[in-house]
């Protein structure tokens, strides 16, 4: 089975100046990331700010150019950004961002905006496009009478539905969602999560779901990749990964999720903060915060290796044997 999305060794380096004239410091925002998404599968990408997860999302669409590695969509390499081929491809991969209000044009009624991709990619006849818009609105739970509304007349959750409907208009194979529910209130967030679940049920749509919210990721995703400072440190099936995290960082991340009924002092609380990506620690980037770090962690960059069926982790101290110190 060909993967819908096959990214290999992606690298993205920014030049960052600390101050106006300081020498630019290269920041490896994404540092050798490989991942695959299979048809109908949802891959979650979790990590904290500065982990490079959003940059990675934009690279998967070809919006942010890769300095190394390649992205293949259904087996074919991604055409260079801005070419006609690339624009045509955008019909098959769509993106949903965190803030629906800034993703929408406040001067246009929502039905026009949902229809826009159909016009751009010249899909169907004008009459069939109108019918498709109606169908899309229904699919995301918007009422037909809301078609003429403007973004500011809708609630946050409804706006995100519009963005999702627009992303689905061209019938994409892949949807890249970057924190799509983070700006929404709990009750509304559940509505949008359920909408995305319904879309998965069709079996056709693959998704990359980028979020810092582990609970939502676990609920939606089949597989999860955990990022730390531009690299994937652990990857595996969602349920197993959250039930038995192997990498010490994943363990801390899972443990940091506040849950009713779990006492505060039973949590693994990390010391320090994620380092500045411009000053990446040597060896394993996590070692300054890791309770298990030893000499090798400071010296050598650990590679992803299989630690359990379908689960990989990049840690010198995690082997194939079940982790004894799982949180």
């Amino acid at each position, binding site marked *: 089975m060909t993967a819908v999305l096959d990214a290999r060794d992606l690298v993205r380096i920014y030049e960052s100046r600390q101050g106006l004239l300081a020498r630019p410091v290269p920041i490896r925002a994404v540092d050798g990331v490989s991942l695959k998404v299979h048809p109908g599968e949802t891959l979650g990408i979790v990590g*904290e*700010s500065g982990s490079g997860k959003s940059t990675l999302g934009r690279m998967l669409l070809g919006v942010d150019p890769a300095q190394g590695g390649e992205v293949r969509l259904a087996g074919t390499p991604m055409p260079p950004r801005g070419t006609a081929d690339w624009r045509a491809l955008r019909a098959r991969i769509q993106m949903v961002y965190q803030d629906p209000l800034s993703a929408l044009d406040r001067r246009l009624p929502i039905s026009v905006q949902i229809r826009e991709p159909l016009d751009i990619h010249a899909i169907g006849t004008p009459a069939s496009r109108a019918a498709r818009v109606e169908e899309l609105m229904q699919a995301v739970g918007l009422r037909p009478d809301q078609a003429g509304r403007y973004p500011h007349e809708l*609630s946050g*959750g*409804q706006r995100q539905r519009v963005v999702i409907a627009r992303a689905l208009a061209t019938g994409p194979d892949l949807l890249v969602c970057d924190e799509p529910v983070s700006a929404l*209130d*709990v*009750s*509304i*967030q*559940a*509505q949008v*999560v*359920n909408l995305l*679940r319904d879309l998965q049920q069709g079996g056709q749509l693959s998704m990359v779901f980028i979020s*810092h919210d*582990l*609970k*939502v990721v*676990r*609920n939606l995703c089949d597989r999860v990749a955990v990022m730390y400072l531009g690299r994937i440190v652990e990857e595996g099936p*969602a*349920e197993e990964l*959250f*039930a038995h995290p192997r990498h010490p960082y994943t363990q*801390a*991340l*899972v*443990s*940091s*999720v*506040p*849950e*009713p*009924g*779990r*006492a*505060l002092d039973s*949590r693994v*609380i*990390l010391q320090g*903060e*994620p380092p500045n990506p411009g000053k990446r620690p040597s060896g394993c980037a996590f070692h300054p915060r890791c309770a298990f770090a030893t000499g090798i962690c400071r010296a050598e960059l650990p590679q992803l290796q299989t630690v359990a069926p379908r689960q990989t982790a990049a840690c010198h101290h995690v082997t194939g044997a079940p982790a004894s110190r799982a949180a």
Partner: protein
Amino acid sequence: MTNLVEIRDLRVAFDGVPVLHGIDLDVRPGEALGLVGESGCGKSVTWLAALGLLPSKATVSGRVRLGETDLSGAPRAQLEQVRGGRIAMIFQDPSSALNPVLKVGRQLCEALKLHRGLTGAPAKAEALRLMDLVGIPDPKGRFALYPHEFSGGQCQRLMIAMALAGEPDLLIADEPTTALDATIQAQILDLLARLRAEMNMATVFISHDLGAVAQVCERVCVMYAGRIVEQGEVGLLFDRPRHPYTRGLFDALPRLDGPRVPLVPIRGTVPDPRNLPRGCAFAPRCAHARDFCHSERPDLHRQQDGRALACAYPLPAAPATQDTAPARREGVHS
């Protein structure tokens, strides 16, 4: 036990639109009280109003008593003594809550001067002690830095240090971890819990994150559309929520364990304060609402188990089964 703070019938309107409809709330000395609800429900407004921190377009009525002092209608000078002195407050976005053009040391010393009369070397020594207390590495080296030279998590630590400067009896933490990364959230929650225990300081923890509230609070108030709808001990309320809204908040949350099932969202959206439903404000979104709920508004009444509840047809008081998952799966509450 006498209450530290007593709020009675607190009402707030912005430009004539009421957003807070009579809040009665007590905070006991040293207790950790959680205030939960979705955005716009009035959690923050309650405390900003109590401290006189709302903009002038807001009209506030009701009574706020702190110990023997009546804060409602108190002269500005008296309020300024209370703020940062007996009641301190920290906010959601720590990076923008510190003044960007003033050195952090100076901002700390300002609070020390106002409430403890410290200036010069003693003030600096105390500021360094506070920075160390809240876990800022190398306080001496960082005393003269500006806020933008600290990370978000460290800015929140500095905010906490500043709040502690006045040795307050009550700390209001308004979404203190919302803008922070998961591992940093855990650090800040841990710090707040530790400081409360060490300093015997009451804490009001305003958050939409039920998990975080459950971990640090003893008592919880659930607010909806400018009213308290349910209030009680944290275990009681979170194990056996009786207001459909409280229950709805839990069911809407995905879990980190158990089966991965569709969530149970609360249908519809929070009502516009200019256009509140006539009866219970939650009725249009409530699966249990009957005719009565659409015409009459239930008052907050104390229940036998000690909680207070504002619902005409609450969920059964009988202990729910340990596992709420089957209920979700069958969609009992939707």
